[in-house]
């Protein structure tokens, strides 16, 4: 199962061209959805207005090199290692989900565009399955235990709201993909077709629902993290006070508790 390209097995009843057209359609839906989302929420307008405000309040101007260094730090700490999260469990779950999704999506595209009608290197399906499993581990951990609705709001895990569209469609895509692959490897033709249909439905909701879900956060969150770092470096600090220096240390400090008092 883990070394078989599930898409090459499909070529009997779906042509490689049809699969490639589907992938390109999903990419267009993501790009279009993100642009519409930006226009609808006016997030780009807010972002640039905020940047202008920060520039006006800046106490020092940043050189090109400093900005490049901030961009590098943003990518290294905020994007690649999800440094924004203050809760380590959320950070680990996010890293699992993020890298799982990247592996899953990238290997899907490579296998569909490069290896539907030729022998697939074993590493590709292996990474595809590993990505889906990582997505499931991080995603279900988040859904049942870490999700703020459950952990801080005290809501039951089965209460679904619109904010869940992204995580649920993501989890459904990975889960149905894994089940479809397992059934295909086991030779259960009927069941495998059913779960392939569910897999396609879930992925279409995931990529087609960008306007209504939080899918676009993977594009605007890095921009917000960069802006936050620039505001700290140029002295505007988003209106926040400077770090304490008189006294720099008062008493032993305190330890933050997890928000689990519900």
């Amino acid at each position: 199962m883990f070394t078989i390209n599930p898409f090459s097995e499909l070529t009997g009843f779906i042509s490689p061209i049809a699969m490639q057209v589907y992938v390109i359609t999903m990419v267009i839906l993501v790009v279009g959805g993100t642009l519409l989302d930006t226009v609808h929420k006016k997030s780009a307008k807010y972002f640039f207005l905020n940047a202008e405000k920060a520039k006006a309040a800046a106490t020092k101007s940043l050189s090109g090199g400093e900005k490049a260094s901030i961009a590098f730090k943003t990518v290294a700490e905020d994007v690649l290692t999800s440094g924004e999260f203050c809760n380590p469990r959320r950070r680990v779950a996010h890293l699992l989900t993020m890298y799982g999704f990247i592996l899953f999506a990238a290997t899907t595209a490579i296998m569909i565009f490069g290896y539907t009608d030729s022998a697939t290197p074993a590493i590709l399906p292996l990474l595809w399955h590993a990505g889906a499993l990582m997505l499931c581990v991080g995603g279900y951990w988040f859904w049942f235990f870490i999700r703020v609705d459950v952990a801080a709001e005290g809501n039951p895990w089965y209460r679904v709201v619109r904010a869940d569209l992204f995580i649920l469609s993501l989890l459904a895509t990975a889960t149905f993909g894994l089940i479809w692959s397992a059934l295909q490897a086991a030779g259960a033709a009927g069941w495998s077709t059913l779960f392939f249909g569910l897999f396609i439905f879930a992925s279409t909701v995931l990529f087609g629902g960008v306007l209504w879900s939080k899918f676009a956060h993977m594009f605007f969150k890095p921009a917000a993290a960069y802006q936050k770092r620039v505001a700290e470096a140029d002295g505007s600090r988003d209106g926040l006070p400077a770090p304490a220096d008189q006294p720099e240390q008062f008493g032993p400090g305190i330890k933050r508790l997890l928000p689990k008092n519900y």
Partner: protein
Amino acid sequence: MPTFVYMTRCDGCGHCVDICPSDIMHIDKTLRRATNIEPNMCWECYSCVKACPQNAIDVRGYADFAPLGHSVRVLREEEKGTISWKIKFRDGREKNFLSPITTKKWGEGIEDLASLPVPDEEALNSQLLCYEPDVLGYEGGLRELPGELKQGVYY
């Protein structure tokens, strides 16, 4: 001045939901970020502003006395045990305050009241609060105001 959340800073951790004594800080059903669902009912205790690890919560002044351009921002540094405030007025003036966080542990910094002897009947019927006036640190009972009060001034 009720609170509001900068959505780009909030990471939806739930600390404000947990700490709000008025139970009005909640997680938005569409964005899964914190939001003040009922600003009119805000006690303005600033607990959420201080508790937010992302400094994502600010306070919005009522339009009649703090219109436009002001901000009240707070930086809580738990490891240092300090809390800093920066108040920016609409005319551009700024005031900065720095205070210690006075959180103390029950039973260590704060006396474990359950271990103290139960007050007698007379103390229970008294108008003084538990262990007053000793806990106020005044010897010989509560202080009395000297002389007659000035007319027209209420204390």
